[in-house]
């Protein structure tokens, strides 16, 4: 009781030595449970021993405690992944068309060989320069196909080669090589260089068709050309093609 109060710097020492911090509370006789209370507590402990011990119910799903949060996290991750994949597919889908052009581009590069055999130097030159533009990529591919087929009509040997090349060209790319694996920016870089549309080259291809005896196809292509380029004077250009010396 008369022990002087400890200053702050003795607080730590008192904690270490486990001394009472305030000796005035040294009241060991301050309070004790009554004998009746002791009896009640002991009696309860005795009764509890007589009762059958509560059996611990085995958990049906012992991992349920952390399984629920784990399932939630997995659902979130899966959903996020799916959304990201759908986004990336949307981004690659436009790039898939250039991929068609990419497969068509070799066709155009293959075409000159066939055309060289079938239609001579003019058609070969036209086929060599037949590189698809971005806007007319599909029609260019179709024209390349026409050129290949024209070459096929020109001779048996060249037809065999052209057919085999056409087969190569038309073989769809295997799924593993599909450009879905490529980001759209990479797919864009893989495209061939774009060239401006040129009705003269188209006309050269049409002439090649006509030379190969595909007059109906040539007329159809010519109509398409006229429809697309109404200001293009087809006759003058045809004349110039047929008589280059003039």
């Amino acid at each position, binding site marked *: 009781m008369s022990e002087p109060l400890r200053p702050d710097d003795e607080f730590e020492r008192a*904690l270490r030595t486990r001394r009472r911090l305030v000796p*005035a509370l040294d009241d060991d006789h301050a309070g*004790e449970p009554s004998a009746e209370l002791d009896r009640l507590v002991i009696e309860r402990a005795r009764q509890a*021993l007589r009762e059958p011990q509560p059996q611990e119910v085995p958990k049906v799903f012992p991992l349920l405690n952390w399984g629920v949060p784990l399932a939630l996290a997995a659902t979130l991750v899966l959903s996020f992944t799916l959304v990201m994949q759908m986004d990336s597919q949307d981004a690659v889908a436009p790039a898939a068309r250039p991929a068609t052009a990419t497969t068509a581009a070799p066709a155009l590069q293959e075409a000159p060989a066939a055309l060289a055999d079938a239609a001579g130097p003019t058609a070969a030159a036209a086929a060599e320069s037949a590189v698809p533009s971005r806007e007319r990529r599909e029609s260019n591919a179709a024209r390349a196909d026409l050129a290949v087929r024209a070459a096929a009509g020109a001779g048996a040997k060249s037809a065999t080669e052209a057919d085999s090349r056409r087969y190569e060209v038309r073989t769809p790319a295997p799924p593993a090589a599909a450009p879905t694996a490529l980001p759209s920016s990479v797919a864009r870089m893989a495209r061939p260089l774009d060239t401006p549309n040129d009705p003269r080259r188209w006309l050269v291809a049409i002439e090649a068709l006509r030379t190969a005896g595909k007059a109906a196809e040539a007329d159809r292509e010519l109509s398409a050309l006229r429809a697309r380029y109404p200001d293009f004077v087809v006759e003058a250009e045809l004349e110039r093609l047929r008589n280059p010396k003039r």
Partner: protein
Amino acid sequence: MDEAAQDDAQLMLAYAAGDLRAFERLYGRHKGALYRYLMRQTRDRALTDDLFQETWGKLVSARSSYAPRAKFQTYLFTLAYHCFIDHCRRTQARPDTTSQTSEGDALVDTLASPQRGPEQNASDAQLRAQLRTALDALPAEQRDAFLLYEHSGLSLEEIAAVTGVGAETAKSRLRYAVAKLRMTLSTLAPTERGTGDRT
């Protein structure tokens, strides 16, 4: 765990296995400290009796799942602390410690030893009344930390475990509590000395 704590754990395990004697020994060891702690918290003897019984009742009920992971005292006082907190929640607030109950006054009266002289008893009663007022004025968290330290014999880490806070937080609360109690008691010290001189 030290030897006594290991012994406590062994007694508890023995009781769980069906040995009532072990429980009686365990009860005899810790009943006083636990009762004083609850009495200091509630300041109400009837409520203290209820919480005391409830605490031991929970211990008895949980005997089959008891595992000596910590000191038995920590386990026991954690049960008592939660019983008290649950009671406070049920009654929406901690007991109004500023209102002195007759039981609380009786507790202070019992602090005075009958072997001491009347003047000394009066001085002690005055000191304890001051101390009680100072304890009442403490924030609940600081009072918890202080009473657990003084009555349970738990270390700071164990007090932190009982109250569900970090050790540094428990230490800080204890430091503030002691500082405030000291300040209160220092005002009484000259009176106490004066009383001592007279006797």
